[in-house]
């Protein structure tokens, strides 16, 4: 076993029933784990609360993007129509908030969409082309009929043997140590 294989990503275990994985997740949450995840073939309603996940921070970047877009639109139309090349169109003022409103509005939407799209890339740590879990022989089954809880090594509470025992006490099966 060479040095590279000594690095441990975490410990995984599987469950066969929704209720089992749901209650196990609540116990992991209550034990104070921060770096861990649940993998399921379909969304389980209430899993966010069972895992103690906070609301996604992406909407904040959406708002930030929207406000940026509105200001950008204001500057764009003001600079072009009122500052760099003052031009009267249709008897309207050089600049007001009304006549370029479609521009301001579209810039708001566009930048808000940028905020959302790139925000989820940032918070999901994308792009990422591989993951240690993909090496796990039974990982494909979590897109079919199996549920999985993974405790990650970067969590301060992590210790290989204790974490294995903890997963065992939760009723997890096929407990596996995942190596990077």
């Amino acid at each position, binding site marked *: 076993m060479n040095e590279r294989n000594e690095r441990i990503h975490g410990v995984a275990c599987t469950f066969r029933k929704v209720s089992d994985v749901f209650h196990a997740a609540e116990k992991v949450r209550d034990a104070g784990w921060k770096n861990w995840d649940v993998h399921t073939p379909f969304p389980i309603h209430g899993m966010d609360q069972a895992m103690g996940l906070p609301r996604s921070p992406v909407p904040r970047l959406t*708002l930030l993007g929207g406000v940026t877009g509105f200001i950008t639109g204001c500057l764009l139309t003001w600079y072009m129509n009122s500052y760099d090349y003052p031009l009267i169109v249709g008897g309207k003022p050089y600049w007001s908030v*009304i006549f370029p409103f479609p521009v301001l509005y579209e810039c708001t939407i566009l930048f808000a969409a940028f905020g959302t799209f790139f925000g989820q890339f940032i918070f999901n740590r994308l792009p990422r082309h591989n993951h240690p879990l993909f090496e796990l022989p039974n990982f494909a089954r979590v897109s079919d009929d199996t549920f999985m809880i993974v405790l990650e090594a970067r969590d301060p509470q992590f210790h290989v043997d204790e974490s294995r025992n903890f997963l065992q006490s939760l009723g997890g099966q096929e407990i596996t140590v995942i190596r990077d």
Partner: protein
Amino acid sequence: MSTSSPHALTAHWKKFLAVGVVALAVVWYFAFAGVQHHDNRQALSVLVGSLFWVAVLIGMLMLTMITRVFDAGWAPLIRRNWELLIAGLPVVILIGIVPLAFLPDFRHAVWYWTDGSHILPSGHEVGHDPILLAKSWFLNESFFLVRIALYVGVFGLLVALLRRWSFAQDTDRTAGHTHRLHAVSAVGIPLGAVTLTMLAFDCLMALSYHWFSTMYGVWFFALSIRLALAVTVILTYKLSNGGWLDGLLNQAHRHVLGCLMLAFTVFWAYISFSQYFLIYTANIPEETFWYNIREFDPVTNLKNEWWGVSMYLIFGFFFLPFLSLLFYRTKIVAGRLLTVAWIILVGGIVDLWFNAIPRQVYEKSAPEGFVVTPFLTSSLFLDLLAIVGFGGIVFALFLRGASRQETIPVHDPRILESINYHE
């Protein structure tokens, strides 16, 4: 009739009826007195009061049909309250708009295009106005009265069908009623959309018959849904504290209502602004005068009271609810959602004032031949009294209906999904 304690509320229906009858008696008394003195402002109170509830109930009617068509899983628990409330829609039109339209004195006072001797700002009489003559295929008194009668008929029919089969399901437990209501709603949505558009044209847009906006019906629809959702949030909050929704209304129901309030707040702003923006850009006098009298005093050319009202609509009726509702917690914390619902309710009244009250009043000495109806008058209290009056009738009918029908659609195929609704 159920005997469980949450239904103790329904015993109050007579109090609501009494409040409604007394308030409407006072409003109609002042409206009669005003019309005798050639003052139409008090008659407009009847129009504003009835249109407020017409808007609320049309919104609920459309929401009832939309949730039916989309098989909304969250809806049945809340929709039953809409089904109980919309019984008031034909009634409010009958006791509010129908008398205004069918009594000649009121008709002439409110819709001055029906009064041939009314003097326009140009100094000419309405009867000789070429613009009215060109529109007379639509704007003539007999067709107008037929249309008003049709509004009672079409809305009455939709309300009757939607209620009948939904209530029938409570006793005969047949899923076929859900399919039947699905079909009624699919036909009813376009029918209701055309009818509410015509109602907005006839009751509000025709108040200044020179002016025209093809977006007016959509604006009225957006306002209706906003008001309907605001009343729904306030009512369901009340009913979940000692009413029949006690222990049933959950965070996810508030969340879905809050999301809809946000969506229709944006939609209302989009429509209202687009209407303004197109008229501003085209800059045609036939259209711009409608906004000009809502901004400038024609005598002094300074901003008038209506400019303040329009600023309230932008900041108080759009930005305040919009920015509040962007936040997730506003939509799930009951007290916050309730506050936003009240802000939307108040804003809806102001929006009706903005659309119904300002008009050009002939004044020979003024430079442009007219002055604008002021905003701040004691008649605003009469408007509010009219809203209380028609509201009393609507809620008396609601509570009486609730004492006779199930207040939870117990055999709706989706009732469990609705009660256990989650985000």
